[in-house]
């Protein structure tokens, strides 16, 4: 590990426990129970799921603590919640509520267009989104204990998550081939600390678990992201915007665990009913795209 403090070990440790699992967005205690019963490893407690945030417009903020508390009381698995990028006071509130993981998320309207939260100051671990390796390592440098792709949340369209995961994995592979004397220039290009670039060169992976998020809607989407190198799957709108959330949730959990067992992925994909209605990224005006938020 590049940081050996006990606090960091405990934060990254929880991310390790979530590997190979599915984290589901939920807005009510009933949905949280459905997620837990389907085998989710954690839930993300929200007032509105990304598809509705997108449809609703306006400023998207941290959820009402009442919603988060109700969900915490309904399930025994870890409960995550989102704060706005740079909004450390929202993060302090979430920590006070006893949330298990904080997502500093581009799905909400950013509060700071220059700085992300200094995540070292918190006892609760953070997950942050990224589009490429430089962004991932900047978030790790700020103290994130888990990285996820941004994808394009609320679209049911996997294309952006694939782009981001491929970009991170290709950059990791390239860095493992660099000489020691090339690392400083590479760090400059990536906009990331050289000690993290060195970690990637020596270990061939990020210093923290790397999950997929943004646009997962089917069991095959989950298998695709796992095969591209994701270590777990976040599903936002994909479950509770579909026709049969309980069956789809269970199918995505099984497809994530057995992502290389294609017979099984085929079997669990059968008869799930309608997936969430999707959105072509090209139809979303540039200023409404969530993935470009964060720096």
């Amino acid at each position, binding site marked *: 590990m590049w940081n050996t403090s006990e606090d960091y070990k405990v934060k990254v440790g929880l991310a390790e426990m979530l590997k190979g699992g599915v984290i589901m967005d939920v807005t009510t205690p009933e949905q949280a129970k459905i997620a837990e019963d389907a085998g989710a490893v954690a839930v993300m407690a929200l007032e509105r799921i990304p598809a509705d945030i997108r449809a609703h417009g306006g400023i998207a903020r941290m959820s009402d603590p009442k919603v988060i508390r109700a969900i915490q009381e309904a399930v025994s698995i870890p409960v995550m919640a989102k704060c706005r990028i740079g909004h450390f006071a929202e993060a302090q509130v979430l920590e006070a509520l006893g*949330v298990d993981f904080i997502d500093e998320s581009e799905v909400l309207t950013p509060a700071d267009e220059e700085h992300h939260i200094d995540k070292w100051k918190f006892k609760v671990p953070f997950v942050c989104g990224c589009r490429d390796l430089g962004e991932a390592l900047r978030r790790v440098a700020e103290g994130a204990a888990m990285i996820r792709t941004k994808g394009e949340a609320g679209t049911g369209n996997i294309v952006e998550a694939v782009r981001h995961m491929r970009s991170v994995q290709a950059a990791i592979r390239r860095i493992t081939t660099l000489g020691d004397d090339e690392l400083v220039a590479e760090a400059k290009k990536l906009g990331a600390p050289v000690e993290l670039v060195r970690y990637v060169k020596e270990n061939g992976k990020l210093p923290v678990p790397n999950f997929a998020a943004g646009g997962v809607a089917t069991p095959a989407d989950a298998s695709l992201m796992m095969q591209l190198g994701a270590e777990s799957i976040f599903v936002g709108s994909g479950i509770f915007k579909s026709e049969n959330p309980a069956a789809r949730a269970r199918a995505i959990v099984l497809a994530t665990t057995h992502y290389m067992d294609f017979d099984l992925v085929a079997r669990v994909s059968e008869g799930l009913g309608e997936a969430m209605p999707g959105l072509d990224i090209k139809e979303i005006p540039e200023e409404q795209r969530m993935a470009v938020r964060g720096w």
Partner: protein
Amino acid sequence: MKIGVLALQGDFAKHQEMLEKLGVEAPEVRLPAELKDLDGLVLPGGESTTFSKLMKETGIWDALRFFANSHPIFGTCAGLIVLANELVNQQVETLRLLDAVVQRNAYGRQRESFVGPVSLALDGDESTFSGVFIRAPKIVRVGSGVQVLGRHGDEPVLVRDGNILAATFHPELTDDTRIHAYFARMVDEARQSRGPAAEEDAPLKDAEGEIRSQRSAQQG
């Protein structure tokens, strides 16, 4: 020696790293058939509710009960929870292979997770281990046949019940291989006392046959 690691979910890769450091082959296990030829099994950390459901879905739940008759199993955190005989106020179904009552998330939420000292007594040697406790369970009560091998303060955190070894913390998240080495010795002893492999596979094959026929009955 071959010690499988249940890889349905959780930090199974960390256990594989520990075992490989000790020169033990550590394949991933997801299906009942993959228990064949193994000398022991690790149930990693993760989410016990998820484990319990996924183990039932794949049929490995029943196969593991046969496996445990003659093969050592080591569970950490969620792994310990699914081994326990009884849980406090919880509806998670368990394998009932460890004579203990366990309380999930007994220290609280993630902000109450911590690193703390564990006093070990392995094979008569007393020493200290750095215990990583993450949303950890507590062992509330143990049966009379259970040995306490590690304590945090007064509380039992590493216990052995015959072929079962279980920790409420995560030795796999450290660089310290002592507890895994102890388990490997348990596995080696069990292997020697079992003798030739041939008779061993019989009950497992039966278990698989049973599952197959259950499945085809369900499908039919």
